């Protein structure tokens, strides 16, 4: 019986020093193989006295199971270690940058224009478009600005011919849309407009968004409400808004809409010229003359219209101090937005 314990002791010593899957394989062959130690011992079983044989056989069997179990345990231990070290060796420098095409930027005017459009669309406005090269009739006459009227001085016009011009505002879209559709109407008309004017504070092309609401009972108070919502969504909900009388031939009463200066908070600064207010919109009730021109009955319908310059709002939003930057298309400017 002593030899069984000797075998066990020797095995455990050898197992402890086995470090690889190959070592274990050798160990397996040495003890459990066809010519292994245990197999050799079992072959000697018939030589054991018959009364000792059952006990000896049992012990030998236990030893065999013990060795098998130990080897299996050690095997999985080694596999785990190998896997761990493989995984450890696969580590990469995750701080290296990813590969992608760096996206470009949208022009700031586009971004702000989209913001404006989205606000009005969320209020249920449709969008309408019209030509940029426009008839004098739609740009002026149908908007109650006859030829030889001093109000034409408000807008320096690019001429193609006597009757064809570059639109000086988006307002002709009002007329074209009203000619085509019947109330109720609620739309905006964004787009490019042109004025024959180029200096530090003017570019010959700029962007406007026109808005019109017409139905049976639209009032000046509605105009105030819609534009107040717009200003609050565009700037912030505590931006003060004020309406003051002005003049546009196609609206009456007409108003300029000022917002509390978003740069100085109304205290007075260079941008608001010390007044604390910034002019951002022109607006008013659609002049009955315009309704007559498009064949609407001014007794039945009332409406309001407004217009805003996108460049100005963009300047305020991004603190841009030179309007000409918009159209130089300097990459160093455009990439900032």
């Amino acid at each position, binding site marked *: 019986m002593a030899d069984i314990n000797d075998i066990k002791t020797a095995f455990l010593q050898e197992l402890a020093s086995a470090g690889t899957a190959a070592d274990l394989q050798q160990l397996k062959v040495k003890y459990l193989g066809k010519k292994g130690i245990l197999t050799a011992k079992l072959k000697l079983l018939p030589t054991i006295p018959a009364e000792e044989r059952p006990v000896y056989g049992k012990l030998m069997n236990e030893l065999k199971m013990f060795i098998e179990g130990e080897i299996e345990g050690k095997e999985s231990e080694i596999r785990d270690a190998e896997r761990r070290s493989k995984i450890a060796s696969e580590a990469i420098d995750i701080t290296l940058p990813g590969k992608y095409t760096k996206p470009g930027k949208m022009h700031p005017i586009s971004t702000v224009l989209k913001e404006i459009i989205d606000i009005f669309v969320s209020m249920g406005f449709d969008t309408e478009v019209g030509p940029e090269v426009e008839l004098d009739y739609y740009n002026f006459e149908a908007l109650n600005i006859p030829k030889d009227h001093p109000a034409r001085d408000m807008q320096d016009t690019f001429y193609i011919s006597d009757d064809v011009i570059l639109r000086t505002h988006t307002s002709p879209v009002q007329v074209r849309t009203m000619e085509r559709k019947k109330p109720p109407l609620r739309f905006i008309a964004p787009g490019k407009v042109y004025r024959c004017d180029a200096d530090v504070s003017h570019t010959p092309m700029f962007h406007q968004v026109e808005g019109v609401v017409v139905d049976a009972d639209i009032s000046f108070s509605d105009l105030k409400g819609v534009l107040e919502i717009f200003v609050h969504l565009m700037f912030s909900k505590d931006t003060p808004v004020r309406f003051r009388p*002005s003049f546009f031939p196609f609206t009456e009463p007409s108003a300029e809409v000022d917002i509390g200066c978003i740069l100085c908070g109304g205290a007075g600064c260079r941008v608001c010229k010390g007044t604390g207010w910034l002019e951002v919109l022109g607006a008013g009730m659609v002049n009955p003359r315009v309704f007559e021109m498009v064949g609407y009955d001014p007794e039945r319908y*009332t409406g309001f219209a407004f217009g805003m310059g996108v460049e100005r709002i963009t300047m305020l939003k991004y603190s841009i101090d030179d309007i000409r930057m918009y159209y130089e298309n300097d990459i160093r400017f455009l990439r900032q937005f």
Partner: protein
Amino acid sequence: MRVPLEWLKELVDFSISTDDLILKLTMVGLEVEGVERMEDDTVLEVNVTPNRPDCLSILGIAREVSALLNIPLKFPECEIREEGGPSLVDVEIADEDLCHRYAGRDIRGVTIGDSPEWLKKRIAKCGMRPINNVVDITNYVLLEMGHPLHAFDMDTLRGSRIRVARSRGGTITTLDGTERALPENSLLIWDGERPVAVAGVMGGAETEVKEATKSIFLESAYFLPSSIRRTSKALGLKTESAYRFERGTDIELLEKALDRAASLMAVHAGGKLSKKVDVYPRPFQPSRIKVRYERVNRILGASIPDDEMTDIVQRLGMKAEKGPKEFVATPPSFRGDIQKEIDLIEEIARFHGFDRIPVTVPKIPISKEAKDTRYHLMARVKESFRSAGFTEAINYSFMNPRMLDTLNIEENDSRRRTLILRNPINEEESCLRTTLAPSLIQNLLYNVSRGSRDVRLFEVSRIFIDEGALLPEEKHHLGAIYFREKTPSLWKEEAPDFYIVKGAVQSLLDDLRSGDYLFQPSSEPFLHPGKSGDIIVSGKKIGFLGTLHPYIIEKLSLKVSQQDILVVEMNLDALLASVSGGVKYTPIPRYPFIDRDIALVVDESLPATGVMEHLRAYPTELIEDISLFDFYKGKNIPEGKKSLAFTIRYRAEDRTLTDSEIEELHGKLTAYITAKTGGMVRGT
């Protein structure tokens, strides 16, 4: 309009602070744009809108202040002593359609000299230069009462006559010493023989008041605004006088302005005043305008009491006859802008205060309009190019017509059908763009000259083609330019520039689900003939992409010729028209696929799409997809040949394909394609 407060106070004695006054004027529609504080006075710069010529004077502003604060107006009165008997000048209005009233008087025995200091100071504060007592007084009255006057040297008026009549051509030398051709139909003041003034615009040099002048004839008249505007525009002559006449002057006030000036002249230049001549063929007819109380509140969304409405109107100098449902207003002669009910509603709103009108939201039914899908598609086009690495540019819609020459655009090309501006800012911006490419090339030059070596820009804008109709065709285009100097990059494997740009275009077309598209060799005259392609969608050319021709780069003196410059332009209206609306679901295949590759060696000149088309045309229903996965030239491939490798994906809808079935089919396909292309299978 510059308003010295010291002068204003003389006409309306207000006691509110300057800041308060500024706010009140601004909130009533007379925006104070600037304030100049001087040692002994403050001058307000008031922005007077074109509808309010009555406010182009101290008196006019004073009237508004008086109405605003409900305090009396002190009209500038004067004392007239007509010691000189009847006027020696005969006045006749020949064209009374253009001149509704002409008054005047002579002042004989004047001494031309300096004006008194106080007067000089006042007109100087309003931005006018003192000249002499007579001229300064006409200017003074112009500023004070808003009515332009003119003084002639009476002794130079031939035949002692004034005749107001249209021009018959000819010339006149005006006060500024310029000889001017007289536009047809412009209104002139004639003496017995010749024109002596361009009515309402500027006097003539020959009848000018000079140092030696002894007698003057003082004119105060009403001219038709549109006539004055036409003449002033035709002559390119903008004067204080024309500015007021073309906006409309007060026909009733002109007499008082004449008296005011004459009395000042008698005091400061001496001389005797004659009696007045006053020819007034078309007297002022006051209009009566009905204003419905309910309509006022309906338009404004307010509930202003009837009495407040009539009170406002009366404070503004109008008569108001009250009825139960409406009142009738009679505007004074100085308010030519008030003609309709709506004009009075505006006045009521102004004085009631815009800030006191409630804030509401419109009650309007929800829209039945289909939303504008084009706007969203345009946004997707932009977004697609932006994510492909291009930054958005916005250029003016103008173009230098010479750029078309630079780009070798042929005479019969539609891009030559430009619209020319009559009054461009400069030659470089003298016509409207018919293509976006020139602007983007300019953007490239601009940025490269400022040191940028990575210029990837796109623009979505309209172009304008003159097709002979009254208005041009306006089309939305997408343009892009790509220039990028290769710099060492961390992760290699970048495609050649052409394919990067083509990839951006393909990604856009795929994303939009445009119609079937392909690229064909392009003949755009400014592109490299071997590195350019037309973009064909649903069988129609909608644009191009390609490398700028080396010859063009040379012409542009672009110093970056080492690197390709790529240009793209597409007609978005045509592209978006090909976009299919709906998507229909196809069931997910139930049986597995089998992939087989073919590597072909073909002539280098054979386009890959040609091979692809042949493969697609092979008559079988079992090919699901064909993709090109390798392109190779060089070692192991004969000179003049290239290798193209495709993966063919086979699948049947109704069963699992067997290996042997596919072996046979793939073998046949291989034989077919080698025969079609004259190529051979690589490695055999």
